[in-house]
């Protein structure tokens, strides 16, 4: 025997007379017993009665439709439904244009609001603060600062450096005070500085910049010199030597060792108390 839900699905067929005699008999027996199916049948019957009252629309434009069809057939290339495409276009335009227009409008509004906000902020913003003076400068800074000091000592206007690092120093001495070398005020360091200053005073150009060589807490000091450096460095002799496979000059200044080598850009002098291994590492980093 067919189960309840399968019989329930056949109620329309029963009403439309599409069931076989045996099926009709089975269903009628089931209907006598099943209240839910009787209710369902009554609902479906009411739906069917309503549906039978559907009338035909009063349509009189047959000729118009035929003329439209002829026009479409004449314009359509063989095998290509031109009208279909145009209708699709028309439909797509009519339906999605609104949606797209709304989205496009919203995007434009949001974008212009953001732009205005950005411009407003830009206008109201104070001038960019100069970068804090680097307490631990890299080699690029070292070169810049060397050039800057050089320019200062020659009385030139070192605009580029001031713009780049926000420096407001007006003299070599002031620059030396502001560099925040972060060095222990050991007598040896001070003597190294003195050495630098002596050199500066003597040769009249360049040169003292701190560089943190990354190795432990020891300090390396770089000097920058013009390419046409003299063969001597103040009162000290330059001794040709080789470190890390590169030719350089060595200066022995008391318990400081000073190394200088050629670089494509400029020349550096390293004063160091480092052990040879550390010095090599520092040089590799610098070169």
């Amino acid at each position: 025997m067919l189960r309840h839900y399968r019989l329930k699905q056949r109620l329309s067929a029963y009403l439309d007379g599409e069931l076989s005699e045996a099926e009709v008999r089975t269903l009628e027996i089931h209907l006598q017993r099943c209240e839910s199916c009787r209710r369902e049948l009554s609902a479906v019957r009411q739906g069917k009665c309503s549906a039978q009252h559907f009338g035909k629309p009063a349509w009189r434009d047959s000729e118009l439709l035929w003329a439209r069809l002829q026009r479409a057939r004449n314009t359509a290339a063989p095998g290509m439904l031109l009208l279909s495409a145009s209708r699709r276009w028309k439909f797509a335009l009519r339906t999605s244009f609104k949606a797209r227009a709304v989205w496009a409008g919203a995007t434009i509004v949001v974008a212009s609001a953001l732009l205005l906000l950005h411009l407003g902020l830009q206008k109201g913003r104070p001038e960019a603060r100069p970068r804090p003076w680097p307490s631990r400068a890299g080699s690029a800074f070292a070169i810049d600062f060397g050039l800057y000091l050089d320019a200062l000592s020659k009385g030139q206007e070192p605009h580029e450096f001031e713009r780049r690092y926000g420096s407001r120093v007006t003299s070599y001495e002031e620059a030396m005070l502001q560099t925040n070398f972060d060095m222990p005020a050991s007598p040896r360091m001070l003597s190294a500085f003195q050495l630098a200053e002596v050199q500066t005073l003597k040769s009249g150009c360049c040169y003292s910049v701190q560089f943190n060589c990354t190795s432990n807490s020891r300090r390396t000091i770089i000097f920058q010199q013009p390419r046409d450096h003299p063969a001597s460095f103040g009162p000290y002799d330059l001794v040709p030597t080789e470190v890390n496979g590169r030719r350089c000059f060595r200066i022995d200044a008391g318990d400081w060792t000073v190394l200088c080598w050629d670089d494509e850009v400029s020349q550096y002098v390293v004063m160091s108390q480092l052990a040879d291994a550390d010095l090599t590492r520092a040089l590799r980093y610098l070169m």
Partner: protein
Amino acid sequence: MKAELGTRNELELLSACQNGDQTAFRALFDKFHERVLHLCIRLCGNVQEAEDITQEVFLRIHHKLDKFERKSEFKTWIYRVTLNLCMDRNRTIDRRAKYWSFKPFRHVSNALESQNFTNTRNVDAQIWGNEVQEILHKALMKVKPDWRNVLVLKDIEGLTYKEIAKIANCSEGTVCSRLNRGRKALRAALAGLGIDENYFRD
């Protein structure tokens, strides 16, 4: 000539069409366009769309005449083409309704729903003639498309379950269950529109 064409059956007309006889195509058009249009109106709800789709149906028929293998009746074929085109259109409408269904655009979604049985050209109200037909059509539009297709093909076009199964590409059992649901939904929709259960009686 016209009388002569009128007496010829569909298969003869089809053969004539396939041989390039334009009068035969006109005869086919005359014979079927009202049914196709009526079906389109019932399935789409919108007269303007229905006209477009009817035109599309006959264009397709004309282009694909050679491919009609005569395994089924011509009537079944043309109904099937119509049904597919209408379903395409309804799917597009559904997609749009879904697209606009989130809250800020709810009014657009409502407008789209109402588009199913209102028309910018205001033709719809005129073609039904009386209010009862208009309400019936409104109620029909509230029935789910799958159920509505079957309901329209059975109760309006008067096709058999077998033919409907072929047209809607489903089994006869499915046709029957969809018809059940469609009829119940129609009754519920009518109740929703304030029509009493016993208003339509045999």
